[in-house]
């Protein structure tokens, strides 16, 4: 069984029921000829890259089908050619890679960027939500957050329970780059974050920022 794909452009000026009728007529023609319809892709109204028959847009439709013999193709093309509703058509035989590609596309495997982002979002919902984002606390950057995580401090609640000395110890283990960091306010901030008091946290952050900047002056 060879797999074919016919794509055609229907005149967009027709009323919508006639457009649907035109699309259905070819589906019926194929099914009557013992063809197995694999997939119908209604691509819908699209802008044409150049005008055809003084039309600037067209309704695209693509039918993928399997046929035991290729005899139906000349019949199909003849009726497409005679049909005034059809502006343009193209019939293509799909090789095995084409069949695979179309199947993957239907399953959402192609269009990698989108699927990857979606997957990430899904993973994010699963794994990242329980782990709190420590970097939102003032004074904690990505590296420090990583260091804290490796030390077993992953949530706001845990950080809030740690005393200043504990946090200092964790930081000192991380090396000299963390020595200059002052974790005094972290437990306070983390306590607010653990409770979900974001406005309180923001106010506290503003206070800290105000203090540090005044000290610098």
């Amino acid at each position, binding site marked *: 069984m060879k797999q074919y794909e016919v*794509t055609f*452009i229907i005149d967009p000026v027709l009323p919508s029921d006639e457009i649907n009728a035109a699309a259905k007529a070819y589906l019926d023609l194929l099914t009557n000829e013992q063809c197995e319809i694999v997939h119908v892709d209604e*691509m819908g109204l*699209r802008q*044409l*890259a*150049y005008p*055809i028959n003084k039309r600037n847009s*067209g309704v*695209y439709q*693509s039918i993928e089908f399997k046929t035991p013999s290729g005899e139906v193709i000349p019949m199909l093309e003849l009726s497409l050619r005679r049909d005034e509703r059809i502006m*343009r058509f*193209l019939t*293509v035989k799909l*090789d095995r*890679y*084409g069949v*695979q*590609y179309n199947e993957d*596309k239907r399953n959402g495997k192609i269009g990698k960027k989108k699927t990857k982002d979606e997957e990430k979002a899904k993973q994010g919902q699963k794994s990242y939500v329980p782990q709190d984002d420590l970097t939102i606390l003032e004074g904690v950057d990505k590296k420090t957050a990583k260091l804290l995580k490796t030390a077993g401090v992953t949530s706001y609640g845990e950080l809030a329970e740690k005393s200043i000395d504990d946090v200092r110890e964790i930081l000192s283990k991380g090396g000299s780059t963390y020595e200059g960091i002052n974790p005094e306010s972290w437990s306070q901030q983390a306590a607010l974050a653990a409770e979900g008091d974001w406005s309180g946290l923001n106010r506290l952050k503003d206070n800290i920022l105000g203090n540090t900047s005044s000290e610098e002056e």
Partner: protein
Amino acid sequence: MASREDIKFLSNPNIGKSQKKYCRFRKYGIRHIDYKEPDFLLQFVNQQGKLLPRRITGNSLKYQKKVAIAVKRARHLAMLPYVTDLLK
């Protein structure tokens, strides 16, 4: 301007070191080129909608031929223009 650490070279050291071109279809294992994706095919035509040569796209011969067929099919279905200016 006594010393700036971010300036290490007087000229861009990457100039003259042309990166080796590669065939993206071979590299990423793309076996089929769909004529119904004009946005993808746009990478293989110039601003006039003409096919870019292999020496610029880096495609292998096998896939350059497939690209050419896909672009021509897309043109027939008015997904890509035959002739134009300022495409892209």
